[in-house]
């Protein structure tokens, strides 16, 4: 057990921090402080910085155009970018492309697939999305019914997917389909790679309760893809899906933590701005939240430690997800209570993503907190509901029966 950061790591961190500081303007307060219409231009300049410093695909091996950084270096870079108030993903499709698709190709892809797809992710030519859930298959993923059959060297796909993040912006999709209806449900699935720009594919955005539309329904009506566009084995799609769902490896554990720590500071500022810091129930509530944040810190550091030391976190990733999603809902509930009548007609500022705290540098106002409160409601549902997370811990760690 050694809970210090090593000297080498601190040197590397200092180097990254210096580069970032040189790049950023003097009055930089985080991307949330930029007027929304200037953010795209900033992201483009930032992409240039990443390319210049060979940090654009930092976790990919060099042979596919990545930076080949070690787990420790990735962690440090992610932390430093987060600390600077810069999002780690530059487009809405980066999570699916740079992270999920690329990492899965490295596990299950053929050499040809890697050589073909990875450079196109890097260049931005291919923008990926994922097709897993269906209206009838949410927590019970193995029950998907979208079907694919092989005809004349092409897969013909019919059915529907839902909750496809950034599907309206993507031109490729990895999609879990049923290729054999006659075997037990886990064994008849295949992961296909599918070009979206074709008549058989229809994308319909879903408006969420925060007013945004990040997710989509995707309909397949004799959609087609080439026979070789199978990731992994035919009828072996379940294993590939499990790889993808298990890709929460820990490189973001501490950068996510930094976002929550920054948000907690905003929360304390809010409490003080509202003048409620002497109220007994506020003091008690804030102390309880701080304790939860500290526990989240402990769990996040442990997850990061496992990642850096090359261990597989496995089911121990579930307590981290549970901790942050439930902490987040409690914190935003407390912020809403603090806002009182201000929250009824909030400012027009609306945080966009439901994946975590408002952007760094964003105004600390009623719009920010009302939007964040709404967004936080989704956190116990996506990426495996809290109920499923608890089942995972109960069955895989405590060995309780199904």
């Amino acid at each position, binding site marked *: 057990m050694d809970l210090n950061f090593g000297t080498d790591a601190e040197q590397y961190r200092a180097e990254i921090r210096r580069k970032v500081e040189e790049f950023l303007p003097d009055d930089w307060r985080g991307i949330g402080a930029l007027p929304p219409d200037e953010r795209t231009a900033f992201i483009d300049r930032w992409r240039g910085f990443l390319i210049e410093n060979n940090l654009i695909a930092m976790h990919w091996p060099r042979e596919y155009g990545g930076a080949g950084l070690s787990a420790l270096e990735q962690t440090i870079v992610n932390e430093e970018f987060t600390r600077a108030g810069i999002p780690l993903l530059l487009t809405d499709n980066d999570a699916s492309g740079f992270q999920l698709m690329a990492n899965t190709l490295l596990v299950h892809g053929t050499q040809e697939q890697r050589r073909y797809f990875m450079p196109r992710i890097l260049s931005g030519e291919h923008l990926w999305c994922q097709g897993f859930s269906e209206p009838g298959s949410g*927590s*019970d993923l193995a029950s998907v019914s979208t079907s694919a059959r092989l005809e004349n060297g092409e897969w013909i796909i019919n059915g529907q997917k839902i909750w496809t993040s950034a599907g309206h912006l993507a031109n490729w999709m990895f999609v879990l389909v049923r290729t054999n209806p006659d075997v037990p449900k886990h064994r008849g699935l295949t992961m296909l790679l599918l070009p979206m720009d074709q008549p058989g594919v229809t994308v319909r955005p879903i408006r*969420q309760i925060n*007013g945004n539309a990040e997710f989509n329904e995707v309909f397949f009506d004799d959609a087609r893809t080439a026979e070789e566009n199978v990731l992994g084995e035919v009828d072996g799609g379940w294993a590939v899906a499990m790889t993808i769902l298990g890709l929460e490896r820990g490189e973001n554990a501490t950068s996510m933590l930094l976002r929550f720590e920054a948000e907690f500071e905003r929360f304390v500022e809010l409490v003080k701005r509202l003048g*409620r810091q002497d109220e*007994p*129930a506020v003091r008690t509530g804030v102390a309880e939240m701080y304790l939860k944040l500290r526990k989240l810190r402990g769990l996040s550091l442990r997850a990061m430690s496992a990642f850096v030391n090359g261990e597989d976190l496995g089911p121990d990733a579930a307590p981290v997800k549970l901790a942050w999603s439930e902490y987040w809902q409690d914190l935003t509930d407390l912020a*809403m209570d603090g806002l009182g*009548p201000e929250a009824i007609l*909030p400012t027009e500022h609306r945080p966009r993503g439901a994946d975590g705290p408002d952007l760094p540098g964003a105004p600390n106002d009623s719009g920010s907190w009302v939007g964040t409160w709404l967004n936080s409601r989704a956190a116990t549902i996506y990426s495996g509901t809290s109920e499923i997370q608890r089942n995972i811990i109960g069955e895989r760690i405590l060995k309780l029966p199904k």
Partner: protein
Amino acid sequence: MKKGPLVDFSLSVEQQDLARTLEAMLTRLGGLDACRTAVEEDPSAAEPLWNGLAEMGLISLAVDESVGGAGLLPIELCLVHEALGRHLAPVPFLPTLLAARALSRCRPDAVRDELLGQVLDGGLRLAEFVGTDAVSSTVEVGRDVDGRLVASGGVDAVWSAATIDGVLLVADVDGGPRLLHVAVDRERSRPQPQALDVSRLAGRVEFDAAPAHELVPEDGLASLREELRSLGRLLLAAEQLGVASASIDSGAQWARERHQFGRPIGSFQAIKHRLVNAYNDMTSAWTLVYLAAWSLATGARSTADDVEEALVAANDAAMNAAGSALQVHGGIGFTWEHRSHLYLRRARANSQVHGRRSAHLEHIATRVLGQES
């Protein structure tokens, strides 16, 4: 000794009729769908509902018989607000009712009498900031060349802002707080889309030298404010019971229908017990709301405390129920098209009106333990 009455929670035949009639009307007029249409497309979709409520003469349940009402009937009013909450009725019924109560408790004059008459007829919709403070209020009151009071400025967080005819508020006049009715030009009011509770069509109402009329509370302004605060809190608490009940019904229905892993999800205890906890919260809050209504009806000294405790319990129950219903629905509950967020927003927005939970807790602590020294 004969049987009862002794703490009898059952509804009288008349009360059951009232609840049934109102429920039938709300269902006939489209229930939640009407709300959805009013919110998404056309605010006037809520007109039939307002007219239906007016025809039932429900405002009179908050006005003493001596001034043309049916007498203040808190139990009946709670039943009404439960139903309105269940259907997320997108009309400014509660503020209008509270304004009517306020008008009925003011010294009669021509303006008051006309306003009260119109309100009782359902011809007037009012906003009310007497029992609570107006939000972001910037109202300046002066006099026009004829010496008549005029108000300029605006208030935020007005329910159904686009349909409001006037506002009852407290503002400084000649150096002291006075109760005023300020006429509203509907052209200057509109709902704002970022409102927390989209089903309220809440928004900002602005005045520019609008005619204002001073009203004189019979028992003084402070006493009127206190009365309206208790009544407003009680009825909002009752509305929260309706929000909770509709949320639990919605969640339970989905849990019976939705299958995953070859079973209805309601058979999983994580789902079942979550809804049960929400049901228990609602049931206990229900008893506190009606006990508080009884306190108010009988003028018990503990009324303000009973109402405060009922309000906290009802807010908690509504938040728990609406949050649980959303979670039980999963992804579909997070979509704009689904009703889950409408209930969640209503539950939360109602919780924001009458003081913070943290402040209520400290009031309770003070009652139990004494002042912090």
